[in-house]
């Protein structure tokens, strides 16, 4: 299989190529019933993916197998199993630097093993996609859902989006390529879901037909040229600044790092368009009790909101869909009425609470409460959320 099998209208597997807007917003959809892993296959099937490299780790393995099946079926250009996650992420970088639209998946310890790669990915401005199916990090050994690993990724210079459910994973992982490949963005994107809760849960999902797909990635629109000997290569790769031990090298490194963060920021309008906003708000607009959450925690918060409504207590849920860039303006707007902000999380450190506190510092009078917090595979029953709310609000009243 090669790029020669493509025409102007059809990609190499014979799918008609369409715009992202058509694929996400206009194409008629039909109802299916599938898991997060299965839906990721369906999403990648519609993305004209050039390359994917995989490595087994629970709970992302099945998603990686299914992308392999897409390759066997002729939808993905090249695919193989790498030697470990560090090697895999380097192989992904190689594919992307040579101009390929590239996707991979990993979880927990795999993410940490590959860690050196993520700042390198953003520093080289490759628009590859990592679908992260979050799980706990050892030790003690755990394979259960827990999103501590996301906190390690926050400052890597990659965009981070968080999908709540199977449907969102489908739509987000398609939009992810489009936003990451925008010439004024062009940084890697991490699309996160909670492992098991999304990867292994079967839900109804609306999908467009599978005979349409995105147009291929055009590496020649990249702000940093691909390394393919077809055009002058990016100077910093050809002649790294570290070779010049002088003030210019320090200034260049600093401004380059700054630019990577600016590029992440410039993704806001695109993400807003394709995700229908960086944050989704449900519940009572003027509620004093506000839940701020992402992923499965936001699902549980919505359940708590329903229970509180039954009890005659007003509340609302602010679901953050992008973590990098962080939706500061959306959060501030959505928490204007708040007296209490609860941040329920599936990790021990409360990284989202820290993000929320920092974002609202000096701008909001609301009390930020980083509870309930569960980890290592514990579930977050609605009762636990209600208990926190009732105790704190009573205390505060």
């Amino acid at each position, binding site marked *: 299989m090669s790029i020669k099998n493509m025409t102007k209208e059809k990609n190499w597997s014979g799918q008609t190529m369409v715009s992202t807007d058509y694929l996400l917003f206009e194409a008629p959809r039909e109802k299916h019933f599938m898991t997060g892993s299965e839906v990721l296959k369906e999403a990648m099937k519609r993305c004209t993916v*050039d390359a994917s490299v995989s490595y087994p780790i629970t709970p992302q393995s099945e998603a990686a197998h299914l992308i392999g099946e897409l390759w066997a079926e002729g939808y993905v250009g090249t695919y193989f199993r790498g030697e470990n996650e*560090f*090697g895999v992420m380097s192989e992904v970088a190689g594919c992307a630097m040579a101009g*390929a639209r590239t996707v991979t998946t990993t979880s927990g310890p795999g993410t940490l093993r590959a860690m050196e790669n993520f700042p390198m990915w953003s520093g080289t401005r490759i628009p590859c996609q990592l679908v992260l199916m979050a799980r706990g990090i050892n030790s003690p050994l755990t394979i259960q859902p827990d999103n501590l690993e996301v906190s390690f990724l926050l400052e890597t210079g990659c965009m981070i989006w968080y999908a709540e459910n199977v449907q969102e994973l489908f739509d987000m992982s398609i939009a992810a390529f489009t936003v990451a490949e925008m010439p004024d963005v062009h940084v890697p994107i991490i699309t996160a879901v909670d492992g098991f809760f999304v990867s292994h849960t079967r839900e109804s999902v609306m999908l467009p037909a599978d005979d349409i797909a995105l147009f291929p990635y055009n590496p020649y629109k990249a702000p940093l040229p691909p390394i*393919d*000997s077809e*055009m002058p290569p990016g100077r910093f790769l050809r*002649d790294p600044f570290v070779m010049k031990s002088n003030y210019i090298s320090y200034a260049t490194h600093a401004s380059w790092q700054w630019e990577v963060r600016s590029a992440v920021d410039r993704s806001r309008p695109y993400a807003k368009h394709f995700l229908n906003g960086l944050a989704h708000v449900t519940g009572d607009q003027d509620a004093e009790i506000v839940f701020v959450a992402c992923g499965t925690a936001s699902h549980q918060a919505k359940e708590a909101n329903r229970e509180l409504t039954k009890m005659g207590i007003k509340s609302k849920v602010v679901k953050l869909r992008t973590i990098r860039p962080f939706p500061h303006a959306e959060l501030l707007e959505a928490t204007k009425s708040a007296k209490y902000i609860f941040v329920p999380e599936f990790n021990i450190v409360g990284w989202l609470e820290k993000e929320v506190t920092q974002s609202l510092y000096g701008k909001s009078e609301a009390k930020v409460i980083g509870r309930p917090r569960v980890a290592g595979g514990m579930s977050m029953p609605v009762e636990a959320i209600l208990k926190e709310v009732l105790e704190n609000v009573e205390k505060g009243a």
Partner: protein
Amino acid sequence: MSLRYMIPASKFKKYLPKDYVELVDYGPFGKDYNDVGVKNMGTYKELVEEHPMCSGCWMAYYIKIIFASLPNPEDTVTIGTAGCGRLAISQAAVPFIYGNYGDQNAMASGITRAFRLRFPDRHKDVITIAGDGGMMDIGFSMTMHAWFRRERFTTIMLDNEVYGNTGGQESGMSMEGAILKMSPTGKKFGKMPAMQLAITAGCVYVVKMSPTNINKASKAIRRAIFAARTLGPTFLHVYTSCNIEYSIPTNDVFRDAKEMEKGRFAYEEYMTDEAKELFAQIESKNKREVS
């Protein structure tokens, strides 16, 4: 065609750096190897000239041979990692990638696969050039697995038997008993059998050498690149001494390389039958090419 990217618009030419214009006018791009190559070094604009390597560095000399031997410099990408070598490699007029520590062969696996997808009718030569630490220690699993997967690119290990760039620490390729930083009482195990590992892992062409003969060194480099285009992974294990860490007086660097040639870097060449056939074809077509 990629060669086009080198050629400046005529009106801009006078504003470009002299070095660049000389590369366009007198460099090896698009030329017949017999008119450039190692035999004609000094008579044309070479791909790597200035570099910050130490005086008397045998590695810098070998890197110049690598770049003078490229069959298709305008369609070549090199990948390296931390170490002295990349200080010179990154100065060459050939795209160079520095990824993470020791991941050159993983990176190259991705690059070659993407090239074959995007340029199915053309040879885009991919060469990883890294030191003994980068290839056999920190990058070991990625070096080996790229070979096991039969990734079609060339791996060149610049073996100076020490971590030179970080100040002289023991590497897996140092000799047993060598007293170096991090082995203050002498290294406790011997040199890793890189050549045997490469053969076992499926490399189709493997050479171990001390590059005292320029033509011989160049021939091995070209064979490794040609075989990697179609047959499979190729590996060159080359002695490139560190005259600083091993205290070799500058004047004795060549003598030391000659000594090594009689000892643990005695010339060894391995090739599969397929590779043998390929070389016979290429070399009979162009008798002038091989010495």
